[in-house]
């Protein structure tokens, strides 16, 4: 489902930022960092206060009416014809690939399709639309990247994650074994099938620790919450950050 063929627009003057509910509540600094990264490229960022959640939790649980009701609130919120930048492969995938299906046969179908066409995952937007050039101001460090399943397989932006990290001169990027394998989060899966999820996150955390990385970076907060939560539970002193926070901290300098 990766989108090698997507055509990207010229750098716009203004964009919407959809913060996602996980970032809103648990990782707001990642949202701020994403916004700052875009602004630094001379693009104005609009953060509508009416935004809430993309609706994915209900969609993946089979509660389509409830998902649609929440998704409709986002259609109302992001009406202007601006790109919608989303700092999550999973939420971006929901809006870009599942909204058209969620609204099939609905009065808002056309609006849903229109919105889905201007949804971009954050790293995709930074690389493919803004052609961002980063200068690493941070100290040398060893970093493991975990790319979410939705970022990799649904949005096809794994290479954009990589491209950004590779621009950082002092960052040694290490590759965990089975890097393409799911971390076991899966939204409500972690609650519905906790035993399987526990084994999966255990294996994922072990693979990351085995790289000798000092830091874990991911473009999705669901995976971060899962993997970092497990690492902390094990008492591993490995830092974990959203890729937006990591990029911003290493490149913005003292101001």
């Amino acid at each position, binding site marked *: 489902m990766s989108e090698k063929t997507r055509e990207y627009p010229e750098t716009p003057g203004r964009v919407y930022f959809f913060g996602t509910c996980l970032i809103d509540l648990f990782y707001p600094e990642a949202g701020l960092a994403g916004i700052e990264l875009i602004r630094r490229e001379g693009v104005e960022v609009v953060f509508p*206060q*009416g935004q809430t959640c993309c609706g994915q939790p209900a969609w993946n649980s089979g509660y389509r009416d409830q998902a649609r009701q929440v998704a409709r609130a986002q259609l109302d919120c992001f009406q202007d014809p601006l790109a919608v930048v989303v700092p999550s492969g999973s939420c971006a995938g929901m809006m870009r690939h599942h909204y058209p299906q969620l609204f099939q046969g609905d009065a808002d179908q056309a609006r849903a399709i229109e919105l889905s066409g201007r949804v971009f995952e954050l790293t995709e937007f930074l690389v493919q639309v803004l052609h961002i050039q980063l200068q690493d101001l941070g100290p040398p460090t060893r970093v493991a990247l975990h790319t979410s*399943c939705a970022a990799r397989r649904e949005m096809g932006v794994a290479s954009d994650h990589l491209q950004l990290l590779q621009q950082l001169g002092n960052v040694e990027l290490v590759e965990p074994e089975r890097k393409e394998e799911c971390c076991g989060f899966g939204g409500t899966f972690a609650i519905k099938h906790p035993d399987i999820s526990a084994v999966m996150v255990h294996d994922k955390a072990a693979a990351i620790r085995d790289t000798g990385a000092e830091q874990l970076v991911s473009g999705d907060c669901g995976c971060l919450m899962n993997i970092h*939560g497990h690492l902390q539970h094990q008492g591993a002193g490995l830092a974990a950050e959203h890729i937006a926070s990591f990029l911003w901290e290493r490149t913005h300098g003292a101001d």
Partner: protein
Amino acid sequence: MALTKAEFGQGVRSALDDPQIRQNFRSAMDGLIRKRLSAFPDPDKLERLRLEAAEIRAKALSRLPDLLQQLEHNCTRNGIQVHWAETVEEANQIVLGIMQRHGATRMIKGKSMVSEEMGLNHFLEQHGIECLESDLGEFIIQLVGEAPSHIIAPAIHKNRFQVAEIFRDKFPDIPYTDDIEQLTRNAREILRRKFHDAPVGLSGVNFAVAETGTLCLVENEGNGRMCTTIPPVHIAVTGIEKVVERLSDVPPLLDILVGSATGQPITTYFNMISSPRRPGEQDGPEEVHLVLLDNGRSRIYQDEELIATLRCIRCGACMNHCPVYTRIGGHAYTSTIPGPIGSILEPQKKGLDQLGVLPTASTLCGACGAVCPVRIPIPQLLNRLRFEGVSKQSGKVPGAGSQRKRSEAAAWALWSWVHSHPALYRLATSMAGRLRGLLPNRIGAWTRVRTAPRLAARSLHQLMAREQKRS
């Protein structure tokens, strides 16, 4: 019998608690993933082949009734006797009838997942007929009375030492060995005599070609050829979805099936069965029967989204790449076909009231859909079946709505109400942020292996509102 969430959880735990099972699956699946990758070194070429294969299968399914009639016509013309079975009971009766007509009390079997679906061995044994599995993996698990744990590698949950133990136990006269080649040699020795004596051989079918009435059988051990040529009667059992339109459809399907399944360029044996022994021919069965089983497939056929399930060519790649299957193995699913494809196919056949838990046993990571050689959108269909499971509208899937729980539905209704009223959402989240010190550090199963996520003091909404005020 319905598989409850608790029962599924029990099967999962017993698999997870068995380090041998986990290690056997992990190393076997890793091997199969590597082999597939080496079979398709050029990703663009693979994508083209997947597109072609998906189109062939989709096109065949779009004309399923026509093609089945054509298949019947051409098989009959070739001398193959065609039987239709709507249910597994009917299919079993048809096979039993053929056995009884020949006074046969023994059957030798090649690998067939449809015969597993029918519970054929058990059924025939109840009627005094001995069934012997001749596929090496099936032979091994039959010795210990287990079901296949993988569709192409049924004994994959056993390693060679476990197999050696089984042989020692069941064949005390044969000297112990844990050498794979010698074990295979021993099995071959035992089976060779059985092939010779069996009055009836049974096989599955990989592709049934409508235009020529040809049954194609893909295998590596030669046991399939033995089963279909040595006994005087050959019975092929298959699902109605296995039909393809033309002979020229077979090579691309064979390429992608074999590469996806085992990473081979081609299997050691590829059989094309087009008729019983003709006058003057030296060998081959005197009778060939084809049993075409529906068992819910024609219902799946009627749904324009779910019909994609029937494209499956049974390569097993989705299970090889599934992070859940890799952890829990095939038996935990309890269904004939395990893994991602089983989790969409089996609940549609048996009903969501029976197997509704299976579509939830996935993280929707998308690995299955990404490798499926016929591009079945497995994650999308898992999502659809979750919807059917909790839906109040009567769906096209049997047992729709059976997974709906009042408490869960109420929770989603509340969630939806809060998240579709932005002012309410902001109020709720800002209160949660203020009260975060009161939130529990332990939240159910999550914190058994993870620390609790910590709410931020101020949400992104609040931080951005404050920024706007300042400027």
